C-alpha cells in the first residue's frame, strides 16, 4: 500500500489555503485532471484530487471516488456553493495560487520520497 501523506504537508508544499477541513487528515495518491469522467475511471482510493476546475461537480466527483481532499490550483475564485458542499460531504478543500503542473511538481517528492 502507498504511504500516507499528511494534508498539512500538502498545504505547506503548495503554500495552500484550507477552505474546509474534512474528515481525513491524509491522502495516499494524487489524481489530477480537468475532466471529471477521467477522475471517475481511477481505481485509487484515499486520493487528493488536483484540478483547476472549481464547480460543485468537482466536489461531487471527489465524493463518488471517495477522495479525502481536493486541491484547486491556479488561484481561481471558488464559489461558496463549492465550499459548503465540501463541508457537507466531509472533504478537505484547499486552494493554491500556482498552476496544476507546478503543484504536481511540488507534491511529487512527498509521494515518491522515502
Amino acid at each position, binding site marked *: 500500500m502507498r504511504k500516507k501523506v499528511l494534508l498539512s504537508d500538502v498545504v505547506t508544499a503548495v503554500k495552500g489555503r484550507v477552505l474546509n477541513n474534512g474528515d481525513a487528515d491524509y491522502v495516499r495518491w494524487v489524481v489530477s485532471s480537468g475532466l471529471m*469522467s477521467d477522475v*471517475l475511471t481511477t481505481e485509487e*482510493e484515499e486520493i487528493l484530487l488536483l484540478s483547476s*476546475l472549481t*464547480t460543485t*461537480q468537482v466536489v461531487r466527483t471527489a*465524493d*463518488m471516488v471517495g477522495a479525502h481532499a481536493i486541491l484547486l490550483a491556479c488561484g481561481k475564485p471558488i464559489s461558496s*456553493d463549492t465550499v459548503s458542499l465540501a463541508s457537507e460531504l466531509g472533504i478537505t478543500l484547499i486552494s493554491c495560487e500556482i498552476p496544476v503542473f507546478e503543484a504536481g511538481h511540488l507534491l511529487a517528492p512527498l509521494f515518491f520520497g522515502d
Partner: protein
Amino acid sequence: MPHRFPILSEDSADKVPSLTMEIIFRLKVKDAMMTSLWTATKKHTFREIQTVMRDNEISGVPVLDDNRLVGIVSVSDIINALDSGHIEEPIEAYMSKQLIVLEDDMPLSFAVSYYNKYPYRRFPVINKNKEFVGILTTKDVLTAILNEMNNEINILENQLHHDKVELPNQIIREYIIKQFDFEKAGQASFKLKKLLKEKEVSRKIIRRASVAAYEMEINVAIHSNGGKITFVLEKDSITIITKDTGPGIADVAQAIEEGYSTANDWIRSLGFGAGMGIPNTKRVSDEFKIESEPGKGTIVKSVIYLEETDESQ
C-alpha cells in the same frame, strides 16, 4: 394577431394539455371570485365612490339594493362624471345598469370565455337566488388556476416518488433530473451512495455503483430534456435506470464509443462531455443496456452485482 386568452379559443382548445382543461372545467366561479368587497348604494355620490376606489386601489364598485345587484361603478364612470360635472351627484342616474354577470356555480371555463367575448376585466357574480355574492377579475382567475396547477403538480411529483410497489427484499428510489440543472446533478447518486452505505454494501461495489449512477445522472442533465433516475436495490444486485423525455440518440453504437460526444463547449468547460460517460458506466457495470429512439427518449440500464464476480474484477 395577439391572443387575449388562448386557452379556450376554438382552434387552440385541442392543443391545451388535458390537465389544464380539466382544471378550468373543475373549478367553479365561486372557487376563484373575491367575496370581501367594497359595495355602494344608489344614494352614494360619485365623489364618495371615487374616494373609496382611490384609498383601496380598486377599479370597480358594485351597487347593491339589499342583496340585489343593481349596478356597477367603474373608473370610466368616474371619469365621465368628472367630465360631465356630476361628480358630486348620487350615482343612481348614471351608473352602468346593463350588467353582464356570472353565476357562482358556473365552471371557470365559462368565465374565461366571457373575457374573450366582452371587453370587461371584471364580472359581478350572483347566486341562483339572484343575490350578489362576489366579483371575478382576470387576476382572480389566474391565481385560482395557478394554485390548482401547483396542487396538481405536487400530487404528480409525490406519485412519482411513491407509485413504485416494492417487493419484499427490494428498495426502490426515484429522483427527477432537470435539464441543465448542473448545480443539483449528482444529488441522486449521493443519496444512492448513502443508501448503499447504510445497507453495508462493500466499498468497491459502492464506488462502482456511484460512478455509474453519477455518469448516468450527468448524462440526463446535460444531453436530454430532463428525466428521472431509479435505483432498485435487491438482495444480490443494484439496478440503476435513467429514462429521459428526449431528444434520443441517433446512433447508439457511436454513442457508446469512447471519445464520441455531442457536448458543447459550455458542458466541456464544466469538466464533462468528453465522450466518457457511457463507456465509464459500461466499464463499472455487470450488465449494461441502452435503448434510444430519436425524437422520443433514451433508457439506460446498469446492473451491478453485490457479490464481486471474477468477470467484474
